[in-house]
């Protein structure tokens, strides 16, 4: 029981940390977009690259909604496997997105972080949703 009482707030705080950094990237994405373009670029190139990054960030927020709804509804709150997976990948996302912001990484690196650190826990969350609501399993 002590593991559960530690894992639930730790998972919540890492999800919030990842969410905070994603919102920060929304605000300061100009440098990352410019890092993806050559020194001489047109406005159309900038807008195209910027739109790709905004789409990626928006989809990330959608996946956050899926995972937080699973967490708050109790479907995966006390599931140790999903808790540990979520804790690990959101810690990794927080650290790597911090580098993304400070080191001004190119935009294609965001898709790698997105695929590993946002899609994976959301897919497991959807599987747990199907298991609990569809197959009537106990949510543990």
């Amino acid at each position, binding site marked *: 029981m002590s593991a559960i009482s530690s894992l639930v*707030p730790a998972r*919540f*705080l890492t999800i*919030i940390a990842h*969410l*905070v950094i994603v*919102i*920060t990237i929304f*605000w*300061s994405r100009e440098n990352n977009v410019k890092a993806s373009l050559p020194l001489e670029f047109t406005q159309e190139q900038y807008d195209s690259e910027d739109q790709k990054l905004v789409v990626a960030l928006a989809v990330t927020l959608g996946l956050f909604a899926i995972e937080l709804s699973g967490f*708050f509804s109790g479907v995966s709150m006390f599931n140790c496997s999903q808790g540990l997976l979520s804790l690990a990948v959101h810690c990794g996302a927080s650290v790597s997105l911090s580098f993304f912001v400070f080191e001004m990484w190119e935009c294609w690196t965001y898709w790698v972080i997105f695929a590993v650190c946002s899609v994976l826990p959301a897919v497991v969350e959807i599987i747990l949703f199907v298991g609990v609501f569809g197959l009537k399993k106990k949510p543990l």
Partner: protein
Amino acid sequence: MAIKHGARFFFSAGNQPILSSTPLQLLFYLNIWYFAAFYLAEILMFIYKGIILPYPPDNLILDVVLLVILLALETLRIFYGWKGNLCERSLALCASLFMLFPCAALAVYYLLLQTFVLRLEFILSAILLCFYGLELLLGLISLSAFSRSKVY
């Protein structure tokens, strides 16, 4: 006769529905952890701003004192809310809801009105205000549930 009365009292007590709100308790629990992280981040950001930025000393002292006041108010508010929800006491939950407004005012201060507002502070204060909004809503629902019940 005594056994009959005892049995009736026991079954009558056992038949009372539980009125405590589980979502509200969940919010209080996560709010404790979130506020601890928020406070730590604010302390580190004030150290950063005090060193890097040309912070006037009077403004810095004011902001830090308000941070200490926020800690005291938040601790009392969560304690009264926690106790009121679990013990189904309307008065303690009322106290918690009334203390929500100075806490929200201080969160709005850190969101908009302090001398230097970092983006990180803006986002963290906005999330804290979301917590307050949800707790206000669920607190009012729980308060009406407690007041409606006929207990003893």
